[in-house]
């Protein structure tokens, strides 16, 4: 019975992810120890436990809320990458679609003064357009979606900076956009009473449950609907799916447009919560989209798995900010996440090794049984 448990793909995926996490944390611990051996144990514990290390109950809840508020956008980016990957498309453009979402949401919220749901829809539309461009180029012009995604990431970054630098949107005294609470309170995501659960943390909004619901929806679309089956078939074998009468070109465009909408809504979830303002002078593509790639692979390429992996990655990132800054740099968390995603590349190898062990064990047992009979 025990063997059959380890043979299950889901169990193998979980084990592989755990191996990646443990190895990543180990690398982080070793580096912390090299920098300063005296505090490394405490530092790695802080990174892992994050908000649990806060002193009082309300402080814990508040920090927990902050982590959740940032997990929602990360989860959306991960879902974007995950959804496209299931269809055989590597959506590295999630980062750019995220920028487009921030651009559209903040433009609608601050410049137009629209309510939050209009801002969300605008973000989704902007991301979908950007994704569809990649999809069109892939389907009709044979341009690899990774390359077009990378180009669009940078084009959108500069475009977003330009749009949001508009004096109606940008704070005159800083490079950031105007704080939403004063510019347009209607544009802020409603908390639906969730703030009260987290020691009045205003940043815990409807975005958190929405992101989880969307994750479950994406899982249902992929696994339980004909549409999802068609998409996965397209990803598995483009020629075969065309032969079976599926419109593979349309499927590619629709997939990337949906992926784009997901990542863009993620950005709206962050910027419409008021947690953060967009810096119009940033010169590098925000890391959220790339962290989404990390969460996707750590989550075993499953929409449900990404819920947990997104939370984990966000939690160690926040935990990194809590360590003793006079001893260690906070970027140690980014380093750990990067090591984890690097190791995710070896998942296929881990699984091969696991299956090898199982096969060997079974062979031994079969031999033993044979010997017993003889």
């Amino acid at each position, binding site marked *: 019975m025990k063997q059959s448990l380890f043979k299950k793909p889901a169990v193998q995926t979980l084990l592989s992810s755990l191996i990646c996490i443990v190895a990543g944390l180990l690398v982080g611990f070793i*580096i912390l120890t090299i*920098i300063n051996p005296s505090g490394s144990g405490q530092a790695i514990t802080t990174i892992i436990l994050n908000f649990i290390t806060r002193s009082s109950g309300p402080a814990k809840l508040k920090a927990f809320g902050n982590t959740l508020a940032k997990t929602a956008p990360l989860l959306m980016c991960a879902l974007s990458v995950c959804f496209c990957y299931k269809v055989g498309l*590597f959506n*590295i453009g999630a980062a750019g679609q995220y920028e487009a979402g921030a651009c559209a949401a903040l433009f609608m919220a601050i410049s137009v003064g629209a309510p939050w749901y209009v801002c969300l829809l605008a973000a989704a539309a902007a991301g979908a357009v950007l994704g569809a461009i990649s999809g069109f*180029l892939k389907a009709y*012009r*044979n*341009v*690899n979606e*990774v*390359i*077009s995604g*990378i*180009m*669009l*990431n*940078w*084009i959108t970054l*500069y*475009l977003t*900076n*330009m749009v949001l630098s508009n004096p109606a949107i940008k704070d005159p005294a800083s490079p950031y956009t105007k704080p939403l609470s004063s510019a347009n309170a209607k544009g802020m995501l409603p908390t639906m009473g969730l703030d009260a659960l987290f020691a009045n943390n205003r940043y815990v909004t409807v975005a958190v449950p929405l992101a989880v619901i969307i994750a479950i929806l994406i899982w249902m679309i992929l696994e339980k609907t004909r549409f999802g089956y068609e998409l996965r078939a397209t990803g598995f074998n483009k020629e075969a799916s065309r032969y079976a009468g599926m419109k593979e070109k349309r499927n590619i465009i629709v997939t990337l447009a949906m992926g784009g909408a997901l990542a863009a809504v993620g950005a709206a979830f962050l910027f419409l919560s008021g947690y953060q303002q967009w810096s119009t002078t940033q*010169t*590098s*593509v925000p*890391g959220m989209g*790339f962290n989404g*790639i*990390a969460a996707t*692979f750590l989550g075993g390429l499953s929409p449900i798995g990404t819920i947990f992996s997104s939370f984990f990655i966000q939690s160690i990132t926040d935990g990194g900010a809590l360590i003793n*800054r*006079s001893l*260690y*740099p906070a*970027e*140690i968390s*980014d*380093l750990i*996440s*990067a*090591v984890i*995603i*690097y190791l*995710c*590349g*070896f998942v*296929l*190898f881990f699984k091969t090794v696991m299956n090898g062990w199982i096969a060997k064990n079974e062979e031994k047992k079969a031999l033993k049984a044979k010997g017993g009979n003889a």
Partner: protein
Amino acid sequence: MVLLIQYTIIFASVLMLVALGGCFSEHSGIINLGLEGIMVIGALGGALIMNLLPAGTNGFVMVVVTALAAVGFGILYSCLLGVAAIQFKADQTLIGTAMNMLATAAATVFVSAFNAAKNPDNTSSTLQYISQKNAFIVRIGGFEFNWFMLLAVILLGISWFILYKTRFGLRLMACGENPQAADSVGINVKRMRWSGVLISGALGGLGGIVYILAGVSEWKFEVGVAGFGFLALAVMIFGQWKPTKIALAALLFGFFRALSNVYTGFPFLANLGIPSTIYNMMPYIISLVILAFTSKNSKAPKAEGIPYDKGMR
């Protein structure tokens, strides 16, 4: 005007070096999306050496040792791609992305720790090389050149020669086009792909140090290399994986980058009122448009991105 030409040449040599690196890797069959990360690590190696060498070091020694450090760090870092993509058949896009994330984080952590070890109050991620920088600069008339530009031109010639005129280069390209066929005539595909990846590490690392020496005398490692690795990928594609065309593409893209830095100095351009972001966007827009029109019969190596499996035919 002088400034524009100067910046164009600096940026073009960076882009050309890194794109040539990508070109070697892709011709061997491995997509190297981690060029951005390799540049960061190469820059880190070079900057550390400059920081550690005593102030009175001979200029020639300084240039050579710094270049070697950048190349060495780049090669070492590219091993991460080699091990994962060649030995373990990992997804090359995923590994490249991880390498980019890792490089910036690792460089920031390392430099902060390095600074803190020297002075506990300094936990910044900035390395300075103000006096050391002078060793690299050559002034001819009003122009300020950099020894690495000469090196870049030499390396361009060598790259072209290696790829098209040597047995090694032709074999390398065979591994990116049809590894099974290459294997069947006795070429060691794994070794060729390793060579491609390590060469891209060397050139990418060198590109990194040239970039951070351009116009500034300290570098904040938190910011990475601001997308130059990705721009170099665009240069490589625009140059259709051919060294000579890559050189021209690098000049064009370098020119746009330079324009975005200095366009305010030209009354004619400043009057147009085009914000610098437009110039920054241009290289990416151009490559995207070109890609849309040329990818139907793409010159990309046919087998790039596909892990080599002896059993496949």
